[in-house]
Structure formats: structure tokens, C-alpha cells
């Protein structure tokens, strides 16, 4: 006995020396009962063991940062400083040996085949219900069974995507704890985890001979292309939008597969056709990959409150059943109550034994089952049979029956009797454990894993990977992750791997030279336009605050400079209604600091940095699938609650200057990246138009504020300096004139000089040339309103006589010119919106008649 102990210990790498399974009755994935490392885990554990503690910590930190940078999160609008639902990816993956994977793969593919057949039956002849293989009341009580979808049968079969949550019990057996047949539930998270993990630990993955995911996604992609019936198909991934918890997953998958990410409002139906609303008008859609709940997909025939799809989509689908995957209504077979009926169904429909069983559950609509459970309610968990969410880690908790007092228990019993058809009772199962990486080394944690299946040209295929999450085993038999702790899932290969092909770069056979515009949804054009405006607004406001604080800091500067700066601060803030406050002297330092603080973090006014950053971050998110990873990176510091943004809000005036420099550098980096990297398509036009419009407006406003009415020479000199500084044209001016700033020269440089990228004329020319390149959907030969306004502004600027303007001591000419622009530029912005962004298509509304007779 004592002889063998040291030899086993010798095999155990040091990092595992303190690793102990949780209890005698539990199963650990990494070490067996004797305490020896399981073979599949050896390579990975050895690699990690070989690293120094510092390197391990460093890799974990890099992983963490990469997760944050990639933006993997449930809720992208959540404040990242509140870490409750932060997505965490462990350095230590979960590992499946090739032999184990083969069994799981076979079992999952069998289930996908079974669910596909069952769906086809439930939505056509309902033979399984008629013959009692499935209790009809289970199906008919399920709100996910969509009656209007009966008789719509895609020839390829209703189920394109399937996912299953699995857990291994103490007996070492895998069980399915939940099925997902509604959508491709959370696959984008799994993909992003792999991309991040490979970035930090690709060497370990390679050494362990892990199977790559790209072949799976290629097969999925070609199956979808084939399914659409067109080589050059326009495939859209339909998402509920950025407010949805899984939006990241949808957006990531759409980008990876190169599909359009669309929302319900981007689509509209006409008769039996569905179209995408684009800048160039309505475009055909060949295939919709559905990432929204089936019953929310058509407010006309399905859930009246569901606007996640366009009204009338079901009618289009009836005519073209291949158009939507998964088929609408596919969620019904994920009903938890079906688990007990699957073995018989499998035997009957496929003629095979079910390879992998569900965790033991009882459907409470069944009289005998209900009776059995009610007699022995202790220790079971009562849960909804149909949950509807596919969000990994967020399965709802059940009613734990153990903690109930007598009256609560009586109510639960009545509830079960009344609503049994929509409930299941589940017995607790054990969850096996696998190591996670902590500061104290590796420790075992119970977990569950989600695996994915898709239909391909050669039948269903399982993705050789997945998403493992730590679970709280006491709360439900489901993938409920209390802390958002995830692990990549590696499937090891016993053969040599084919060379790596990533879908980020299409293979030569697939790639076609295509210089035409990739279609752009009207909504995305709108988002990019506002992204441009917010970026410029952030830049300008930061410049104004920086100039003002600099003048306070430079004690020796003239009071006139501080006066000018103060006027610019006030111009960006709403009028102070608190008249009781005594008016401080015009050059008062404290007042300038107070106004600066208001402009940085104040809650009133549309142009405070606080408001601007949150607007900027919101639209950047909406347009995220059009931004490069690097461009996105530069904007993340503006995320509300980010360390930079919150530090800026709290900083003392002197420190504020440093933060502003950093912020300005961020905007400059973003602009530079977009300028260098963004294809000059319509999307670019809208982004740049937004920026130019905002810049033109801000410039006119500052000129008006500083020079109308006229001031004395000293004030004017300070105002000219400030204006050149704000418009970033001081160097240009100096190199050209080598004189102190003079009004006619400065006005010429900033209003008329068409070669100065900061001048008004330059902005207006850029806007006009963008508009000239955009598709013009308006009929007739007259100019559209936006083009007319753009031309009028440019003409009036070009005709301006700066010498006369500068000589006019009343400043009437300057006021007139600036007023004209300050009135027309917002109109131009509205005209662009009306022309291109489908504002006329406001939110659809629903009407119905009520049966309302007199008695």
C-alpha cells in the first residue's frame, strides 16, 4: 500500500498536488479514483505545470483583458464596473478525449435527427400524438407550439441547429439536462471563447492536438448557402437587437460567417416576399438565420406583442418554407417534459435505441407521474417545462420543495394539480467536477457543458468544442452559472490535424472579386451618421474644456483669454436658470473650473461629455459589425463606467487636462483608423457626413459666440487665438502669415479656405460630394431637399466677402452668415435622415377589434 503511493504522487504534476476531488461520491474529469491524471488531460496540465507561476498569472490576465476587449458579455450596455455578470474565461480548458467525443457526437447527432423528425410530425400529421407516443396535452399546452405554423414543412427538415446542455453524474454517465431547438443558442459565445483562448494559449492547444472549429463552421456555411438555393446568397442573421442578452453572440457569429446582421425593422414583407430595407431600396433576402424566438417573429399572426420580425413574415414563409432556419415553432421539442418519452420515440421513429438519456424528469401533466411526485414532494425541484431561453448559464431556477412550510407546500400542490401540463419535476443529479485556475492553483468545480450541432451537406455534425460553465448544483438541473465563469471545450484528436483554415479569410475558391457595395441597411447608415456626429462632438467639447482649463492653469495669461474661454464653455451649456447666484467676474478661475466640471460630468444639457460619450458608445455598439476590431478598441474607453471615463468625471482640474489629452488621442486614433481602413462605401459616406456636419455647426457657433457683437482689440485678439486653437489651425495660420491673428485672415482660413480640412467650406464640399455619390431614390429631376440645402450653404459660404465682414463693426454681416448656417445645418441633418433613414416607417402598431356588444 505505502509502496504505490509515492509512485502515483510522482506522476502528478506539481500544480495538481493540492488538487482533491470534492467528495467521495463525485466524479472528477481530470483525475480518476486512484488520484491519477486521466490521459486526455495530461498534455494540457503538463504544459501549464511547466510555466512559472508568473507566466500563468500573466496569461490569465491577458485572457481576462482579451475577453473584455472582445466585449464578450451578456449585456453590452451593463456597467462594467458592476462585475456581477462579468464573463470570465478560464486559462484551463475542459477536455474531451477523442474516444469519448465520438460517443457524444454520435448521441448528439442522433438526437438532432430525432428532434427533426418529431418536429416534422408535430407540424403535419401529428401521428406521434395520435398514437400516444407523445402526450397531446404536453404539446398543446406548450405556448411554443405555434398553431399557425402547422403544415409548413421545409423540405430539408425543420431543424438546422440544435444545442444540448450535458452534465456527467457521479456514476460517470453523461446526461442531457436541457435541449435547445429554437436557435443556434449561444454558439457565438463558444466561438469567441475559442478565439480568445487560442490567442493566449494556442501553444498548449497545439501541443495537446486539439481539434479546430473552422471545419465545422465551413460545413455549416456551405450547408446554409446550399439551403438558400443561390451561390451568391444574401443571408441575414435576424437578431432581436442590442438590448438582447445574446446580442454579442449574434453579432460575433454574423461577422464570422460574413452574414448581414439584421433586426425586425430592417425587414419588410410585400405579399409573399420579404425584403431588406437598404439605402438603395428594397433588396431580396435569400435566407434568414433566426436568432429570435419563433413566436415573436410575426406580430400579425403570432405573438401580438412580438416585433422581432416583420409583420407578414409567416405568410412569406408559408410560400417559401426553406426561407427561415430553424423552422418557426421549432422550440416545442425542447420541452423538458418530453425527456421521458424520447426512448420510445427514438425506437419508433428512427428504429434505434436512444444513445443518451435526459436527466430524470417527470412531466406533471401525466396523472400517474403527478400522483407519484405529490406523494413524495421532498427534494424534487419543480420547473417550467418550456423555458424558452437559450442563454447559456441563465436557465431559470426552479421551486425547491425542501424549504417550503406547510401552507406554501399546499399552494404548490394545488398549483401542480392546476398547471401540471406546463411543469416538470426533476430529481437532483450530481455534477462532475473539473479544474479551474485560481490564485491558489487548480481547484475542482462542478460544471455543465453546452455542445452544438448543425445540419451539413453530409447530415448533422457536432461542433468539436463547446462552452463549459461552472454551475451551482443545488439550484436546478440546468446550465445555471452563478458567476459567469466559462471554459473553452477542447476535443482532442488522435490523428494529425489538417492545416488551419479560418473563416475570417475566405479561401480562394470561395472568394469572388466583388467591388460593388455590400448592401447597407438604412438603420446602419443612421447609426454610422450619428457615430460620426458624436465623435466630432466629443472631440470639440474636449477641446473647449482643454483650452479653458489651460488658460486657468497658465497663471500669466491675459484675463481676456479666460473671458473668451468662458464664453465658449457657456455656449455648450444650457442657460443657467438659477438667477439667484451672483454673477462671478468674467475671468474668474473658479467659475471656469465650475463650468468645465459641468461640461465634463454634468447631467444637464445635451452636449456634456457624459451625454456625448454614452451616445457615442451606444451608436458604436449598434454599428459594431461595421467597425474593425482595432477601431472598436479605441472607443471602449468612452464606455460609461469605464475606468478612464469615471476617472475623468472625478478628476481635479489639473488632472482633467491629462485625461482630456488621452481622450482626444483616442478620438484621433479612431478617426485615423476609420480613415485608413474603412472602405469608401455608403457607410463611410454617412460616418464622414455626420462628422462634417457636426464640425461645421460647432465652428459656426464658436465664431458667432466669440465675434458677435464686436469686442475691443485685446478681447478680439484672445478670441482669435482661442478659435485657432479650437479649430486646430494655429500652426497652419502661423506658417502662412507669421503675424498675430487678424480677423479677416482667420475668417478666410476657417470659413473659405477650401484646402483647410478644418474650414467651413471644406466641410460643406465634403458633405455635398458624399451626397452626390449616394443613391437617389427620389423620383423627378429636381434636387432632393438634402442636396438643395447642401448646395445652398456651400454657395453662400463661397460668396461670402471676408474683408467686408471683418470691416463691419456692427458685425451684422457675420451674424447673418453664421445664423444662416446655424439654422440650415440642423435642417440639412434632418433632410438626410428623412431621405435615407426610413423615419417615415415609424414603429409598426397593432390594431384589433374587440367583440363589444350590448347584452
Amino acid at each position: 500500500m505505502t509502496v504505490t503511493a509515492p509512485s502515483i504522487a510522482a506522476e502528478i504534476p506539481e500544480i495538481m498536488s493540492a488538487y482533491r476531488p470534492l467528495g467521495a461520491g463525485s466524479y472528477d474529469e481530470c483525475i480518476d479514483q486512484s488520484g491519477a491524471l486521466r490521459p486526455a488531460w495530461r498534455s494540457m496540465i503538463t504544459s501549464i505545470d511547466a510555466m512559472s507561476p508568473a507566466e500563468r498569472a500573466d496569461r490569465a490576465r491577458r485572457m481576462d483583458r482579451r475577453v473584455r476587449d472582445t466585449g464578450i458579455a451578456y449585456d453590452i450596455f451593463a456597467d462594467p464596473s458592476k462585475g456581477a455578470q462579468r464573463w470570465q474565461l478560464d486559462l484551463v480548458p475542459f477536455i474531451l478525449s477523442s474516444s469519448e467525443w465520438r460517443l457524444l457526437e454520435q448521441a448528439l447527432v442522433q438526437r438532432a435527427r430525432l428532434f427533426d423528425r418529431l418536429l416534422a410530425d408535430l407540424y403535419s400529421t401529428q401521428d406521434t400524438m395520435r398514437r400516444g407516443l407523445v402526450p397531446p396535452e404536453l404539446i398543446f399546452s406548450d405556448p411554443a407550439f405555434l398553431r399557425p405554423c402547422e403544415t409548413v414543412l421545409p423540405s430539408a427538415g425543420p431543424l438546422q441547429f440544435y444545442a444540448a446542455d450535458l452534465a456527467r453524474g457521479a456514476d460517470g454517465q453523461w446526461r442531457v439536462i436541457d435541449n435547445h431547438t429554437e436557435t443556434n443558442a449561444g454558439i457565438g459565445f463558444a466561438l469567441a471563447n475559442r478565439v480568445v483562448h487560442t490567442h493566449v494559449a494556442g501553444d498548449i492547444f497545439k501541443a495537446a492536438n486539439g481539434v479546430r472549429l473552422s471545419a465545422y463552421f465551413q460545413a455549416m456555411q456551405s450547408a446554409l448557402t446550399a439551403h438558400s438555393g443561390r451561390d451568391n446568397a444574401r443571408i441575414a442573421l435576424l437578431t432581436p437587437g442590442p438590448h438582447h442578452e445574446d446580442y454579442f453572440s449574434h453579432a460575433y457569429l454574423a461577422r464570422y460567417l460574413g452574414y448581414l446582421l439584421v433586426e425586425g425593422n430592417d425587414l419588410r414583407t410585400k405579399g409573399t416576399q420579404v425584403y431588406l430595407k437598404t439605402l438603395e431600396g428594397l433588396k431580396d433576402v435569400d435566407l434568414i438565420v433566426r436568432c429570435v424566438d419563433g413566436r415573436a417573429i410575426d406580430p400579425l399572426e403570432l405573438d401580438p406583442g412580438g416585433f422581432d420580425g416583420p409583420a407578414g413574415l409567416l405568410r412569406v414563409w408559408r410560400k417559401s418554407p426553406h426561407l427561415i432556419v430553424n423552422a418557426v415553432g421549432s422550440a416545442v421539442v425542447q420541452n423538458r417534459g418530453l425527456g421521458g418519452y424520447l426512448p420510445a420515440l427514438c425506437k419508433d421513429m428512427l428504429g434505434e435505441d436512444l444513445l443518451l438519456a435526459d436527466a430524470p424528469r417527470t412531466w406533471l401533466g401525466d396523472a400517474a407521474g403527478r400522483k407519484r411526485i405529490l406523494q413524495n414532494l421532498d427534494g424534487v425541484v419543480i420547473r417550467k417545462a418550456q423555458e424558452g431561453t437559450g442563454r447559456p448559464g441563465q436557465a431559470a431556477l426552479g421551486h425547491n420543495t425542501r424549504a417550503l412550510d406547510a401552507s406554501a407546500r399546499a399552494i404548490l400542490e394545488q398549483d401542480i394539480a392546476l398547471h401540471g401540463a406546463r411543469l416538470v419535476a426533476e430529481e437532483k443529479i450530481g455534477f462532475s467536477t473539473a479544474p479551474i485556475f485560481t490564485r491558489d492553483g487548480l481547484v475542482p468545480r462542478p460544471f455543465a457543458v453546452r455542445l452544438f450541432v448543425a445540419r451539413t451537406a453530409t447530415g448533422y455534425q457536432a461542433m468539436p468544442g463547446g462552452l463549459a460553465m461552472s454551475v451551482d448544483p443545488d439550484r436546478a438541473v440546468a446550465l445555471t452559472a452563478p458567476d459567469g465563469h466559462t471554459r473553452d471545450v477542447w476535443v482532442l484528436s488522435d490523428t494529425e490535424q489538417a492545416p488551419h483554415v479560418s473563416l475570417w479569410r475566405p479561401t480562394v475558391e470561395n472568394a469572388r472579386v466583388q467591388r460593388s457595395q455590400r448592401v447597407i441597411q438604412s438603420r446602419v447608415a443612421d447609426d454610422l451618421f450619428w457615430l460620426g456626429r458624436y465623435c466630432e462632438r466629443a472631440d470639440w467639447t474636449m477641446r473647449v474644456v482643454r483650452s479653458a482649463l489651460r488658460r486657468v492653469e497658465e497663471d500669466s495669461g491675459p484675463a481676456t483669454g479666460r473671458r473668451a474661454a468662458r464664453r465658449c464653455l457657456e455656449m455648450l451649456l444650457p442657460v443657467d436658470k438659477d438667477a439667484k447666484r451672483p454673477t462671478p467676474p468674467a475671468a474668474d478661475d473658479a467659475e471656469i473650473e465650475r463650468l468645465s466640471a459641468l461640461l465634463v460630468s454634468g447631467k444637464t444639457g445635451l452636449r456634456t461629455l457624459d451625454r456625448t460619450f454614452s451616445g457615442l458608445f451606444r451608436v458604436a455598439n449598434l454599428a459594431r459589425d461595421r467597425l474593425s476590431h482595432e477601431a472598436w478598441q479605441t472607443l471602449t474607453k468612452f464606455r460609461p463606467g469605464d475606468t478612464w471615463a469615471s476617472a475623468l468625471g472625478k478628476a481635479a482640474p489639473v488632472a482633467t487636462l491629462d485625461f482630456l489629452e488621452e481622450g482626444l488621442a483616442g478620438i484621433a486614433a479612431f478617426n485615423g483608423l476609420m480613415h485608413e481602413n474603412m472602405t469608401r462605401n455608403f457607410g463611410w459616406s454617412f460616418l464622414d457626413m455626420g462628422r462634417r456636419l457636426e464640425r461645421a455647426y460647432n465652428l459656426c457657433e464658436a465664431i458667432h459666440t466669440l465675434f458677435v457683437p464686436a469686442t475691443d482689440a485685446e478681447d478680439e485678439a484672445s478670441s482669435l487665438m482661442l478659435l485657432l486653437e479650437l479649430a486646430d489651425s494655429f500652426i497652419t495660420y502661423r506658417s502662412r502669415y507669421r503675424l498675430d491673428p487678424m480677423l479677416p485672415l482667420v475668417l478666410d482660413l476657417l470659413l473659405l479656405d477650401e484646402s483647410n480640412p478644418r474650414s467651413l467650406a471644406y466641410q460643406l464640399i465634403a458633405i455635398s460630394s458624399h451626397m452626390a455619390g449616394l443613391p437617389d431614390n427620389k423620383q423627378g429631376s429636381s434636387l432632393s431637399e438634402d442636396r438643395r440645402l447642401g448646395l445652398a450653404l456651400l454657395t453662400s459660404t463661397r460668396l461670402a466677402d471676408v474683408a467686408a465682414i471683418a470691416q463691419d463693426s456692427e458685425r451684422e454681416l457675420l451674424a447673418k452668415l453664421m445664423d444662416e448656417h446655424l439654422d440650415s445645418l440642423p435642417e440639412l441633418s434632418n433632410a438626410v435622415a428623412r431621405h435615407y433613414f426610413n423615419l417615415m416607417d415609424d414603429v409598426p402598431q397593432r390594431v384589433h377589434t374587440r367583440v363589444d356588444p350590448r347584452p
Partner: protein
Amino acid sequence: MIFDISHRTLFRYSAPVAQSQHVVHMSPRQVDGQTIRNHSLLIEPAPANRSSFDDAFGNPVVMIDIEMPHKELVLHARSSIETRRVPPKDLASSSAWDGLDDRKGGIDFDVVQFRCVSRMTTPSLAIADYARQSFPPEGPILQGAFDLTKRIYRDFTFDATATDISTPITEVFETRRGVCQDFAHLALASLRALRIPARYISGYILTSPPPGKSKLQGTDASHAWISVWAPETGWVDFDPTNGVVVGNAHVTIAHGRDYDDVSPISGVLIGGGEHTVTVGVDVVPTP
């Protein structure tokens, strides 16, 4: 009896509707005891697309799209329908409600779906208790259903202002007020709480003018009631709003699990602003 029925619905919008799509359940279905002699459905402005099919419950559906801007929409259904309903004489001889599961031969497959609760007919424990008072152990289904119908008629007040389309039945049950569709939903929730098959009927009812007055145009109404299944008789209709077994004064248009399945007109509009609806129904018995 033979009825000439006119059902005209007028929508008026405060702003032009750019596009509208509607699902219409205004065409009568074939049911036992009722013959459709004639039917037409006129729609103005003329739809760009119009299609007809039968829904999952066998009701005729018309779907329409209007693509031209409009500020008014008229749907006018005219039907000539003969009713020859013979309600069962002896409600007490129907099967026991609590014996359905043990019945030899089970329940017809097409009936089972109507035992299940739907979005608008989900009972609360209180509603289940209310229902049980009409169904003592081994009580006959139809007798219990009639008793429940009469109790709802007695216990509840018709009040067109108390509820709207989104009022849940639990609230109707608490306030004891509502309209015919609320009472139908309440009766269905009660019956389904006991797993008794029951369905929602949408149709028309002939109303009599007050004594001494002549009947005014457009004063009849679209109406809603329920139908209950018993093995011996099949479906038998009850009207909880009027507390009666349905005879020949009711004309069926469609049936389903609840209002959602058979709403006369439901639509999705783009534009339109505020809207008003005017409904005029005439049910005229012909000699």
C-alpha cells in the same frame, strides 16, 4: 331560421397609413346545425394582395395587404345563414366530467387540444375553486357547464367600460365585470381548470328591440360564447353573457382556443397615428 347578416367595420386614422396588413376572421365556417347560403367580404381600399385559406382550426381566414396610403379602411361582410340547432334536451344524461380520462376509447384527438389552457384562459386557483362549485364529483358535464353559464350570468355585470382587450381574466374575476369575450374566457378557464374540453366561439346574436320600439340599424352585435364537449353529444354551445343554452338566435363565424385565434380583424399598420373603430352589425331574420 334564416338570417341576413351585415357586419361593417370602419377604421379611421388620424394620419395616413403607409402600409397595413390584416388577418380577418369574418367569413363564417361550416358547422353542424348551420348552413351558409351566401357570403361576401368587401374591402376598401382594394388590397394589393388578398389571400384566403383555412387556419389550424378550420376557420376561413382572409389576409389582406394594403400598400397605398389610406386614412380609412372598410371591411364589410354580408352573409345569409340558416340555423337549425337542436340543443340536447337532457343535459343531465351526459358523462361525468371526472370520468373522461377513464373513458373507453378516450377523447377524440381533435378535442384534446381544447382541454389545454391558452394565453387568455389560464385559470388561477380561485377560478378553479369557482368552477368546482358547478362540478360535484361524478356530475354530468353538460349540466355542470349550464350551471356555470348561469352562475357567470348571475354573478357578473356586463360593463363595456370595465375592461379592454388586454384585461386578464383574473382581474375580470375580481371585479366581476366585463363583456361577452371576458365571460367566455372566464368560462373557458373554469372548464379547462377541470380539463373539460371547451372552445371559444365568435359569431353574432340576434337582439330584440326594447318593448314598443322598432329595431334600429346597426344595433346588433358580434358576440362571443363557448362550446363544451361531451362524448354523447359532441359540442354543445352555452352563452355565459346571457345565461342560456345556445339555440337558433346565434350564428357561428369561427372557433378556436380563445379570442387570439379568431379575432375578427387584427392588423399591423405603419403610420396611422390614432385610430377609431366603428362597427355596425345587423342580423335580420328573413321570413
